[in-house]
């Protein structure tokens, strides 16, 4: 493929400005893709109670994604008919589940970010305020779930400690992206990214320390200057994930379900 599929003109949906639409799409993609990954756990969780908990989080995220997509256009068109390069989600959320420690580390990093971001959006009067006010309650719980498990895995057995260290370190390099601009402009109601990044780091650091885990060192984003998920550049497993997610919908063009 030598041409780069561009956005499916996300600015037309509900009269949002192009920057806001791009931001809505990015947040929606984050929520959908993470929800999809969590959905892969169904029937595989370490304990039945945890199957129920992960599904709850996945359902919250899917609900958020659907509201956000609707701000921009048709939810199913956006989810099922865009190419990989048009997805704006963070690379963090598309990372394969790995073991339970990887899933929890991903949850900790992402839900802390989402809680801080939505908390700020909820107090503004921008297009995301209403959605964020509802979502922040859900996300609070997701963050709590991740924190509880981080403590138990970090401060549990030698094996769990080691697995959790490994997971936190492995995903560390995807965490810088959360604080970079979404698209060209900044459709996120002028949330102060620098301040968001600092709050995130101090919150995550506090949890990791309590969990007796070391705060990873090293770069928090890749060296590729072309960018990452927000620029539609993803990791290799993402294409396969999308192929699975989209194939049925795409096999029956125009069908309703």
């Amino acid at each position, binding site marked *: 493929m030598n041409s780069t599929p561009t956005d499916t003109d996300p600015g037309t949906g509900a009269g949002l400005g192009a920057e806001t639409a791009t931001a809505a799409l990015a947040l929606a993609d984050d929520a959908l893709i993470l929800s999809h990954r969590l959905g892969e756990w169904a029937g595989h969780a370490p*304990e039945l*109670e945890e199957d*129920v*908990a992960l599904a*709850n989080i996945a359902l919250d995220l899917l609900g958020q994604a659907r509201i956000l997509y609707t701000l921009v256009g048709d939810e199913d068109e956006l989810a099922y008919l865009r190419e990989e390069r048009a997805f704006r989600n963070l690379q963090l959320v598309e990372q394969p589940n790995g073991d339970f420690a990887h899933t929890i580390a991903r949850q900790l990093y992402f839900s802390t970010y989402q809680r801080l971001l939505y908390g700020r959006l909820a107090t503004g009067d921008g297009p995301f305020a209403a959605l964020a006010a509802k979502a922040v309650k859900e996300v609070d719980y997701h963050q*709590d*779930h991740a924190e*509880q498990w981080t403590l*138990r895995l970090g401060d549990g057995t030698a094996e769990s400690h080691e697995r959790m260290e490994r997971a936190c370190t492995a995903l560390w390099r995807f965490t810088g992206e959360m604080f970079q601009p979404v698209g060209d402009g900044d459709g996120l109601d002028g949330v102060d990214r620098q301040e968001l990044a600092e709050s995130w780091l101090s919150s995550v650091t506090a949890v990791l320390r309590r969990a007796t885990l070391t705060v990873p060192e090293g770069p928090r984003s890749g060296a590729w200057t072309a960018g990452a998920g927000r620029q539609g550049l993803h990791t290799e497993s993402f294409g396969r994930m999308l192929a699975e997610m989209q194939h049925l919908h795409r096999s029956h063009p125009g069908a309703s379900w």
Partner: protein
Amino acid sequence: MSGSTQWPLWEVFVRSRRGLSHTHAGSLHAPDAEMALRNARDLYTRRSEGVSIWVVPSASVTASSPDEKDSFFEPAGDKPYRHPTFYEIPEGVRHL
């Protein structure tokens, strides 16, 4: 192999709305009280069935024995004077 890893059992009580007392909803497994609360929230209130939850380790519940049913509960059966309908009130007297 797997036999040693089972988490303890907890009894779950849910207040379905304000003004009502907590009632027993069922049980679940959790490693500790904090997780038990969260699991209870996810399991027993996912259709908005509750506004408040208690969890109690099942091992901490002391129950009356069904063998003592007669001595425990029957003596209360012949004391109708504890119930308001025991008393006759002249017709027309209100607010009693």
